[in-house]
């Protein structure tokens, strides 16, 4: 039998479940604007869970980490992406490569796989958050799936950022976060990454008159 859970752990589980929910809705969402909003929500949940861990484990650096997440993932990134979207004039994505119900079923399979994978690892961990590792891995895999299934370059970037969210969550849930230096480095990397992606978008659009990745197939050498 599972031992009774305390309030903090229960709260954490709720937040983790929320993260997974958001991941699924991102998988199903067609409109780019809604995707960005969902990404921001993912950031909110991440901030909340990091704060919660910081309070219970009395870890100073996790407060900074939570603040960083709030600024970067809830405000800065979505703002840049929304601006980009407006400048590029993309409102909706076309249909995904695979239809959405199939995608959801594949996603379910992935979640089961991730939980199976996380079980032996999380039994080794000693943190209060160890049960959530499976969810973190599921978030990573679902984001990857989203990247595979979409046409547009912008959605790929959103998938990429969602993957990073999953990684961050995995780090906080197993080891109380990464060292501050690493976290700062990753935050900066992401930011730079998004800028570079932005430049690429303009270049791709200029070259192919579209942001549809189908166009890139023309680059294949025969």
């Amino acid at each position: 039998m599972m031992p009774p859970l305390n309030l903090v752990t229960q709260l954490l589980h709720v937040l983790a479940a929320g993260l997974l929910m958001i991941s699924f809705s991102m998988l199903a969402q067609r409109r780019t604007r809604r995707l960005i909003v969902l990404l921001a929500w993912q950031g909110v949940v991440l901030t909340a869970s990091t704060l919660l861990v910081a309070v219970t484990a009395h870890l100073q650096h996790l407060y900074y980490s939570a603040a960083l997440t709030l600024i970067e993932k809830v405000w800065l990134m979505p703002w840049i992406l929304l601006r980009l979207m407006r400048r590029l004039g993309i409102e909706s994505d076309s249909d995904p490569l695979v239809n959405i119900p199939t995608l959801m079923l594949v996603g379910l399979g992935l979640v089961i796989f991730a939980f199976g994978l996380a079980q032996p690892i999380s039994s080794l961990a000693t943190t209060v958050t160890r049960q959530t590792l499976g969810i973190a891995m599921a978030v990573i895999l679902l984001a990857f799936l989203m990247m595979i299934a979409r046409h547009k370059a912008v959605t790929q970037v959103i998938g990429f950022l969602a993957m990073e969210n999953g990684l961050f969550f995995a780090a906080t849930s197993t080891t109380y976060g990464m060292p501050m230096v690493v976290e700062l480095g990753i935050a900066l990397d992401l930011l730079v990454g998004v800028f570079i992606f932005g430049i690429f978008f303009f270049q791709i659009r200029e070259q192919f008159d579209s942001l549809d990745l189908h166009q890139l197939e023309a680059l294949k050498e025969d």
Partner: protein
Amino acid sequence: MHGVSALTTTTALTAVLVLVASWLLIGALGLVQSNRIGWVARTLFPLGALIALGVAGLGVVSLTTGFAAQTGVLAFGLPDMPFHVRLDALSGFFLLLLGSAGAGISIFAAGYFREGEGTAPGLLCLQYHVFLASMALVVLADDAYLFMVAWETMALSSYFLVTTQHRIPEIQRAGFLYLLMAHVGALALLLCFGVLHGGSWLMTFDSMRAATLSPAWAAAAFLLALFGFGAKAGLVPLHVWLPEAHPAAPSPVSAMMSGLMLKVAVYGMLRISFDLLHAGPWWWGMLTLAVGLGTALFGAVFAAVQTDMKRLLAYSSIENIGLIFAALGLALLCYAFDMRLLAALALAAALLHALNHALFKSLLFLATGSVLHATHERSLGKLGGLIRRMPWVATLALVGTLSLAGLPPLNGFVSEWLLLQAFLSTPSIPHAFTNMIVPLGAAVVALTAALAGYVMVKFYGVIFLGQPREPSLMQAHDAGWLERVGLAWLALGCILIGVFPQAALDAIAGVTQTLLGTTIQRGPTPWWIAPVAQAQASYNGLWLLLGMAGVIAMMFVLVRRMYHGRVRRVPPWNCGYPELTPRMQDTAEGFGQPIRHMFGPFFRIEREVPSPDDQAPRYRIQIDDRFWHGLYLPLARIVGWLADALSMLQRGRLAIYLLYSFLTLIVLLVFVL
């Protein structure tokens, strides 16, 4: 003397490293004013030659008796993996080789490089000196890491030097082939070092010396080394790049590659087989001997049918490398049967021949460079009679030609004589069949030497003797003074080693002492050698020289004084033909025809013979290497087919590429699970 001993104890290694670094500095200075030929060629290249002399001098210091190996650690490299360097007798000998031949080549290059020939002079200067420095570093390296870094730098810098005239498609192709073979060889070496550390995962040569390998792994390391160094040295069947790349490079670079770089491969083979692997079972020697002899014969036969003067020399390099490896194999073989003296004799022959080949092959390649500049012709069919227009080059090239042909009193004779002496003692090997088969190698060596003589008659006769085959040759001019100094330096080396062979053997004694623990017998005087016992066989260079000079002087006096004494210049007897044109002379093809006939199965010949009633008769013959069609082209087809099969993976769709990484991730995770 006190100064020398102080140098040996503390600073020889440091001094060599400083000299190598200043080569690099000179290379970098070339970029300062990269288009001013006066600065680059007339200032920097002579400076490089001076440094080469210094390197050779320090090499001699390290060969003196009582010199202990010096080691050092450089402040470069990866964290926890610094570069180790070491100067011992073996590296000292190769530094001597590198420096002495390199000095001549650099002086020649100072006069040779002109403006407007492909790469800018300053860049060429950089590549040239990086090439020199990397060869010195290969010789000095004391860990696998520095060795491979220097080895690859050597391959890359020489690749850029080969493709100096990179706009010509043939040269691009030659350069690519060279780079490909260099990489295949380097891969084998990398694997070889991977085996040699013997599980300690330490990359220093010290730990490799101490490692104990099982016989199977030691054999694997040896075979990989033979493959890797063989690819660089041009052993058959890994030789295909050599006749393409050496002629494609500018002549000083051809000289460096043929004279020096091939010897660096010999160095590597010696270092690994004798020093790191402590030699091995007798079949290692047998294999090396067989490959070496095959290569020697192959090179000589192919050189005989070439019609391009630089390709001819390149095939001749294959032949000489074959002889060196044969001697090396013989040394391994004798060492395995604990016949130390015989092993030392064979090793001395190998090392001396390496030094000799560095001198005379550089000399000949440089001479072809002078001819090329004077006539803009490489094809033997369009040269001839240049001895009248270019007396300096012709005289100096004659020295190199005679050395290569193995005639006394020059250096080529000494090393081939030593090799034959070693072969003649092999019937005493205590192993059935081996002691019957190996002496037959002496016959192959003799045949190769004879063919080399034939090749050299063709080379010298067609280029310098006879009548000019083209009217434009009448405008040919002799080489400039810097070029003459370079050629003369190398020719002097050939003569000195030939006349005072014991001096060279004294230097080599240090190497055989370190590697084999014994040396050959010392001759009674510097010009008199008797490697085994004086009663058995000895050779006296000086007396031979004096005797020959005496005979020539006597003939001269007799002709001038006793005979009529008048010099007449008249047309040769012309068999009653109304006129003789230069085109009626024996050609390169014609001269090589008997060899082509006798060794027919060696070649892949395509021939177009005109019909008897042809109005405009044309004779065309193309002689190819069977290895190219039988081994390399099928191999290339297989690689191409595999690449096509793999290119199915490239679908051009981003989603599929992402799917690849996704599936890889899942599979890896399952693996963890």
